[in-house]
Each structure stands twice: as C-alpha cells, then as structure tokens.
C-alpha cells in the first residue's frame, strides 16, 4: 500500500485525539485522547520505518535501514506507560478531594 494511506490514517487519528482533548471535559477521556495521539504517532513511525526498510532492501537484502523507527515506538510505549502511572495517580488524587474528574472544576486558580 502507498505510504500516503498510512499518513492519512495517522493524521486522522491524531486529529481525533486533538479535537477530543480540546472538546471533552472528563479528565479520563482527555487522557484517552492523548493516548490516541501517541498511538497515531506509533502507527506513523512504523509505516515510515517499513517504507525506508523496503526502499533500502531493494539494493541490499540484509540492510537494517529503518529499524530505528520501530525502536522509537518501543520507547514511546514505555514512556507512555510511565506517564499513565503518574497521570492516573494525579487524577485519583483529584477525585478523592472533589469526587469528580470533570475539568470544569479546574477554575479555582483563575482568581
């Protein structure tokens, strides 16, 4: 499949993520939308990795070109997991105090 399809799919997922972050008011759903953004990036990286590998493999069958893109995906997964653990802890802490995860509550600092 041409790379354009992957780019289009990843951009759509990424945009859904961004719109979700901006529109939704529930902290957990915002968080899920951020994860969606990260996964769109993962998809894109794997697609590019395959593209570069395929291009280089035409001339050299044992090439490792494009492997770094897939490696990056693992790093993103690990870091996202670390971020989830901290983020959920923060959300739970918030919930304990106000019994809600609605971000509309976040207006005490305005004045």
């Amino acid at each position: 499949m041409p790379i354009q399809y992957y780019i289009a799919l990843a951009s759509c997922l990424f945009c859904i993520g961004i719109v979700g972050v901006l529109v939704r008011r529930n902290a957990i759903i915002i968080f899920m939308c951020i994860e969606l953004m990260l996964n769109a990036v993962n998809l894109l990286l794997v697609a590019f990795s395959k593209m570069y590998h395929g291009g280089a493999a035409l001339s050299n069958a044992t090439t490792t070109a494009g492997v770094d893109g897939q490696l990056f995906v693992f790093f993103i997964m690990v870091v996202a997991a670390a971020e989830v653990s901290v983020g959920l802890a923060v959300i739970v802490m918030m919930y304990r105090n106000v019994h809600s995860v609605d971000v509309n509550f976040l207006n005490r600092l305005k004045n």
Partner: protein
Amino acid sequence: MNAIILSAIWGVVLMFCSVLIKNKGVYRHIAALGLLVILAGNIHETYHGSFFNIDTHEMLRFSRFGLFFNTILLAATLLYVLLSGRDVEKAGGYVAEYFTLIFFVLCGASILTSFNTLLMLFIGIEILSIPLYILTGSDKRNLRSNEAALKYFLMGAFSTGILLMGIALVYGGTGSFMLEVPRSAIMGGYKGVSFLEVTGLLFLLVAMSFKVSAAPFHFWTPDVYDGAPSVFTSFMATIVKAAAFAAFLKLFEARVGDTSAAVDWKLLLSIIIVSTLLIGNVTAVFQQSVKRMLAYSSIAQAGFMLFAVFSLNDVAKEGLLLYATAYSLATIGVFAVLIKMKDVTFEGFNGLARKNPVLAATTTICLLSLAGIPLTAGFFAKFSMLSAVIKTGTYTWLVVVAVLFAAVSAYYYFRVIQAMYFKEGDAQTEEVTGGFKVLLIAVAALVILFGVQPQALLNWFYF
C-alpha cells in the same frame, strides 16, 4: 555523561535513604552533598573527560556548551537546595522522595543539554517533565495543588503528543532521527526540503514553545506556577525552564539552516517573541499576588530568552548562558524570600524593609536584576540577547519592542520594592535563620558580580 549517570544514581540513593534514615532533617544535607559530587563530576568532565566510557552511538554528544550549561544548572540547584531545602521539608510528607524527583529532573536536564538524536530529546523531555507533575501535586490535601498538577499533566502530555508527531514527521522526511542530517544522506535521494520535514519542524516548534511557556502556548504557566507549592515553583521556573531552552536552542540550531528556504523561521519566531513579551509583561502588571506576578514575569523572561533561538549565533549562545545564570540566580533569590512570607500578595510585603532589612535589600537586588537595571547580571544578560539580534542584521525593530517591554516590566518589579520600602505595614515572615541570610547575601553578591564583570562567567566558559 557524568551528570546524567551520577544524578540518576544519587536519586536512587536518596530513595533508599527514605527507608533507612528516619530523621527528615538529614535528607537535604544528603541532597546538597550529592549536588556537590555531581557538580564536581561535571566540571571534571568539562576539562578531563568523563568517568564513564560508554559508547552512545552518537546519540549523546557532550559539547563544551552543554557541559557548561550543566554546570550552571547544577550550581543553581545546589543554591536552591541550600536556600530552600528546609521548605521542601514543609511541602508534604515525603521529603526524601521530593529530593529524589529533583535529581531525576536534573538527569533529564543533562540529557537535554547533550542530546544528539530526536529520541534523546524525547526521553530527556519526559524524564524532565514526569517528576515535575508529581512535585506540582505534592501538597496532596490542597485543592489548588491538585488542580495545578492535573492541569500541568494534561497540558504536558498533550504537548508531548505534538512533539512526538513532529519527530515522526521529521523522520518521515529525512529517514533519520539524528539531529543533523546531511542533505546528501537523506534516504530516497530527495535533495530538497520535504513537506513532511517542514510540517514536523513546525510541530516541534509548537511543542517546544509549550515547554518553555512561550505565547500563545503559555496558558498553563500561571495556573501551574501559582498552584504548585512555592518551593517547587521556584525550581520549575528556573532550572527546568533553562534546560528546556538549551534543548530548544540545540534543536533549532541544527535544523533551521537547512530548512530556511522552505519556512521563514525568523518571522514565525518574531511573532512568538512579540506575543510572549506582550502577554507576559502586560498581564503581570494587573496581578495582585506576587507569586502570580512572578509566574507572568517568567513568561516575559522566556520571551527574552527566545531571542537566543531567534538569532542562533555565537553571541546568542553566550547570551543564553548569561541569561540562564542571571535569571536563575535572581528568581531563586526572590522565591526564597517569597516562601518565607506569610502573605504572598503585594500588601504582604508592606514594610518588610523595616522589619527585616537583609531580606528586603537582597530581594531588591534580585528584582532589579530581573528588570535588567545596569550593574546587575540581568542587564548584561538582556544586553547580550539584544546584541545577538542586532548581529543577525534583520528584524532590528525587535530590539525596540524588547526594550519597551523591559520598561513595562520595571513597573511591576518596582511595585514590590515600593511595597517593601515606602509603604507602612507589618510584613509577616516565618523564622529566618542566620545561614539563610548569609546565603541570600551571597546570591545578591553574585548577581552584582556578574553585573559588573559578566566576563567572569564567560571567560570560564572559554577557558
């Protein structure tokens, strides 16, 4: 390399200390000792090479600039721990863990001063940010602290998503994560600047502006800085911000040259700079709380530091070193006093000069430095930033704008000085020890020393 490894190790050591040592007063001494060790290790690496011989496959490159920047960050943190270490103990119940997190932040910061691939940029930014989300929310019973932590976390994670999209697109355009990709080495044989690379770099610009709180991506800053416990605000506003700027400068230094045919970076950055200066300075004027005023002023100072990214020449690099030093010193000094105040509004400072002349005098010197008054470090920092812009030969009108906004900034800094010296009042402070006063005087002396002799710092850099 020394700074990265030693700060990670010392973070773990402090975690074990929290189990083994029950006396809370000891942790800050261990932290200060650790900072001394890391600082010594980093200075050793600057002149004689690292203790560790690890092949990083060019993923990290330790330049003189990065190592010297580390030295500044570590020295600023040492000063911060010495001045405000006692207050860290009051922020919450897990003192050793707070110091641990500070060390992990330093580990991330030293990756950011030496990264050579976009992978390391990403890892560095995350190691820097994740501990900060926890530190922001460390006051667990306080709703404001909770709210700041949640807001910071959501905004930080969002900007990380944008950063990653930028990195993925740059990879798509060039086929490599390396910071500098020779045009001839781009895979697929495409010699021009591809659409993917340009879009990716624009995403990176947005994400980095988020991290350094440049307008129009600054909106999280005042709330987070205001809600977080003051001790950690002090850390976030100085060391973390300086490290993010080092990364910003490094990234754009490597990439702007090749892509300037496709994007007018100077125009984009000048728009960001002017709006940052405008929003930061004008909003700071209307604040009632000194803490919130300092949050806006840190946005305004970020506008000045962005001149380094704008001009990208040798003067700009020197200027960023000077600015990071001057800004960190002065802000740590002001915050150290602010933490001791019972009331952080402008009225709370009324009559401080009569009650505690040392605190008032040192705060005045730090505020004058932030405003950029001659004979303080802030003056030469601002001066070298502006001369860097003039050296580029374009957009010289930015200098006029910057000077005008520096004049605006004098208004809100002087409001504090006016409250301390010329208003009647009963400023309530917590108990202040003699050692604290001596350290504050040392900070003020350094601010003046670098204001009279900025070369003292820069010569050391070139030596």
